[in-house]
């Protein structure tokens, strides 16, 4: 009984936004919303916490610049400080302008790639991952809100009928 959910299906993002606000106001717990494209302001309406991906990226960038600096310092200054075309390899700072392009690219490389990988891991995306859409139409032109049912099935169904849903289904989840 406890794993029953309601699928309320909409065909317009404005109606969906209104329905989300009403559902929140009625204190029903929204499990998920499936949309074919990003709906501006949906995360705010659902009350989802802001992403921390940018903070991750900043930290990855710091890792990148540290790696670039360490690598160039070890190779060019510590390990084999050759005189290459008169470049001063006595200390890192003396030859630093030549290393800046590398430090910059390492920063961007680390920040970008690690952030993308973080995104994949946090959103559980990988090749051969089984798709999770509850209704194939949600990738094309329909919007679906999934709400958990707790013994109040009829009340919920009639509630969602009033929110402009084109279809309300009760599904037993496996």
């Amino acid at each position, binding site marked *: 009984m406890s794993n029953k959910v309601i699928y309320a299906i909409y065909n317009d993002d404005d109606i969906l936004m209104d329905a989300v606000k009403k559902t929140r106001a009625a204190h029903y717990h929204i499990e998920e919303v499936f949309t074919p494209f990003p709906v501006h302001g949906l995360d705010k309406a659902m009350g989802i916490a802001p992403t921390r991906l*940018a903070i991750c990226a*900043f930290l990855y960038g710091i890792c990148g610049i540290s790696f670039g600096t360490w690598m160039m310092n070890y190779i060019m200054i510590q390990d084999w400080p050759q005189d290459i075309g*008169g470049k001063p390899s006595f200390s890192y700072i003396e030859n630093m*302008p*030549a290393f*800046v392009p590398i430090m910059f690219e390492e920063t961007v490389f680390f920040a970008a790639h690690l952030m993308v990988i973080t995104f994949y891991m946090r959103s559980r995306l990988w090749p051969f991952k089984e798709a999770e859409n509850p209704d194939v139409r949600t990738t094309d032109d329909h919007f679906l809100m999934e709400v958990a049912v707790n013994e109040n099935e009829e009340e919920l169904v009639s509630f969602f009928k009033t929110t402009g849903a084109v279809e309300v289904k009760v599904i037993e989840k496996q």
Partner: protein
Amino acid sequence: MYTFSSKLKTFSFILMAVGLLGIGYGFLTAPKDIQEVEKILAADSHGSHGVAKHEESKSSHEANVASEEHADAAVVAKEAAEHEEHLNHVLHQLQNKPWSALYVACIFFLLISMGVLAFYAIQQVAQAGWSPVLFRVMQGITSYLPVGSVLFFILLVLCGLHFNHIFVWLGEGVTDPKSANYDEIIAGKAGYLNFPFWIVRAAVFLLGWNLYRYFSRKNCLAQDESTNDDFYKKNFKISAGFLVFFIVSESIMSWDWIMSIDPHWFSTLFGWYVFASFFVSGITVIAMVTLYLKSKGYLEHVNTSHIHDLAKFMFGISVFWTYLWFSQFMLIWYANIPEEVTYFITRIQVYNLPFFGAVVMNFLFPLLILINTDFKRITWILVMAGTVILLGHYIDFFNMIMPGTVGDQWFIGVSEIASVLFFFGLFIFVVFTALSKAPLLPKRNPFIEESKHFHY
């Protein structure tokens, strides 16, 4: 409608008065002849060993002359001549100091209003939906342009009339092979670097910029009373034309007014570099004036999203400036070709702190502060970041101009600070007077509704 608060007006008058006094003091205390320079050098000889040693060796030579009758008089004469040449050199640098201080402050504020004008023209041409609520603020700031242009032009004419030695190539006898001042390299550039051509170019550029500013504002005000969008379209067209003229004139302006201070040196991306410097300063000034007017309750429709956008521009263009700064520096440092690299050798050896300090103020500080989305909406953080950016870009202009005019005699003292205060006071007075002349919200701009409801 904005009313110029009497407090701010008094503040601007005080700044101008203090600035004028300081500028006058700077000119009065500049040495008149080499005897005074000798005294000044002797006074701080305990600080600089080079000069002290020079004096010592000279006196020991004189002692030798006195004791030995067959002393080499030629050596003494050469020493004395070198000493005098050195004094002459320092005299010119010290006499240049108040002039250069005035020049740096004058061009800095002039170019800030140009940065705002360029930003304004870009917003018009790009049909930006967010910025029309800020157009009147930008127009207010650019009203400094005519005033600044006149003062700057007078300064250029004074340079041409030999009141100072800011521009070496304007010196007498520089292009004359018979003169002791003859400089073959400068003579070779005389086809471009000669006073009549130079001053005419300056006049054309200043006139072109002022004409655009005048007509753009006029059309914008006329659009308020109009019944169709003709004036808007007219403004669109002249803005596009102005931007073409601007990018050409800006590049040449940077060679004429800044790069020609070091006439033996040249750099290809210099125009862009100067542009980035005053463009980011201009955007920062827009942000700060907007924040000020907003805090006084005059900009009803400006919300944190508008401020956020300005802050993003401040951040982005700061990084762009750094990119050009580094590209110029690194290419010259890497190749190390003697005729190009002296430019940076002087700056690193003699201007070490301002040279690298400018990078910290204009890059590291905004990078770490303005990268945060929440911070870009907080007034006090923006005012702090803006202040650092503006000071940093003053230092940037200082670095571009001072090494060629005063060399190792530089100091940020009375002359420099007073000049900045004077132009700052004038800037406040002119800008806020202009802001009180027109409503702060354009009425019939096609994008004004969108701009009022702009939300990011």
